[in-house]
């Protein structure tokens, strides 16, 4: 007998997981493309309390981007955990 519920579950989980990963990586890449703040370039290396990184991108954007990439890495780790039977 065909397991239609199983098929719908696979569809739902696949869409949910793929969209979560797409959002994370997309957000990370979008944050890395945050435009330079006016006057940011050139001041970054002069002031210790500067919140602008050397590319002129706000430091918060860089940190958040790497948080997104780390979360993506964690999801890849979950995938490896699912692939390898002896870890479960």
């Amino acid at each position: 007998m065909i397991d239609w519920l199983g098929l719908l579950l696979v569809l739902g989980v696949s869409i949910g997981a793929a969209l979560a990963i797409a959002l994370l990586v997309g957000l990370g890449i979008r944050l890395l493309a945050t435009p330079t703040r006016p006057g940011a370039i050139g001041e970054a290396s002069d002031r210790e309390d500067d919140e602008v990184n050397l590319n002129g991108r706000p430091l918060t954007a860089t940190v958040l981007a790497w948080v997104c990439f780390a979360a993506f890495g964690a999801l890849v780790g979950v995938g490896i955990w699912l692939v390898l039977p002896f870890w479960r």
Partner: protein
Amino acid sequence: MTVDPWVVILVVALALIFDFTNGFHDTANAMATPIATRALTPRTAVALAAVLNLVGAFLSTEVALTVSHGLINEDPGTGGVAITPAFVFAGVLAAIVWNIATWLFGLPSSSSHALFGGLIGAAIVGAGVGAVHWGTVLDKVVIPALASPLVAGITAFLATRVVYWMTRRNDGHPNGRGRFRIAQIFSSSLVALAHGTNDAQKTMGVITLALVSAGMIPREEGVPLWVIVSCALAIAIGTYTGGWRIIRTLGSGLTDVKPAQGFAAETSTAVTILASSHLGFALSTTQVASGSVIGSGLGRRGSTVRWGTAGRVAAGWVLTLPAAALVGAILALLALLGTVGVVLGTVAGALAIGAMVLVARRTSIGAESTASDVSVAGEAVAIKPRRRARAAGRGRRA
């Protein structure tokens, strides 16, 4: 029942050749889009896939000792077919012949379906139509074949839309979404690892079952170490060989793949395979990968899906089971003659494979023809402007 040991040796050799063809046939599932978007160079991509397949083959010991996975009644007492080395010979050789044929036409088809088809054909010759569990064929082959591209296609379509919407700020930049290449490598690697853990087990099961049926090892002994090692090596070498024809079809034949799109497609392939294998509705990796590429092509604005190529691929899927069954049936008929028939079948199979390889050599397709034209401007590793200028200067001097 006495079994000619040469037939068992032949079956083991054929099973390893099948494993090899499985590897080079399915390299495309994981690595077609990273090659097309130049996230990885072709040789690096197939080397990475080969290593992950090799590692994956050692990581799982869940080998099923039912050669047909429930598609065939393997109990002669209830009208089923006796699993003999000659029966396995017919099924496996038929699967190899079909894998080579689909490779010749650059069609990404399921190696599992080819194997099942070959075994079904042999079973029908051995014990009649009643030896096949047709309901299970519908559940495990036909419905998943229809569902795989749909599930993966819908997933990839939505994922592609999301990544392009999230990065719409990068519209108009020549290589604005190039960073997706790096993420794509991770998704692809996951697909390759999953492939190694799943597909090498099939061949291990076939070889072990042939040895058990010949009385060479007891059933309770499990899979011998030499079988695990040889199957892992066969699938890894096959993967490294690279089925460039199929990689080209999947990477640039169905649609022109850009980095963000390739990332969405590969991610959809990975999550769909993992979700399906863990939620009890197994889908074909090849069909999932093809569906993902088509879905991502539909999801990116301005992209076109080549429906003619998609139709050829779908035709290959439809034909896989019956065509392999037909070849399997012919080989099983020959095997009924005994060792002489097995030898005749082997010679016929070798001639057919040799002829197809000769035809393929006339229209040779190598690694260089697998990258998508639209992404040629992109580079796998960003070169800093100063280094680029220096390199250009060196080029001019040379």
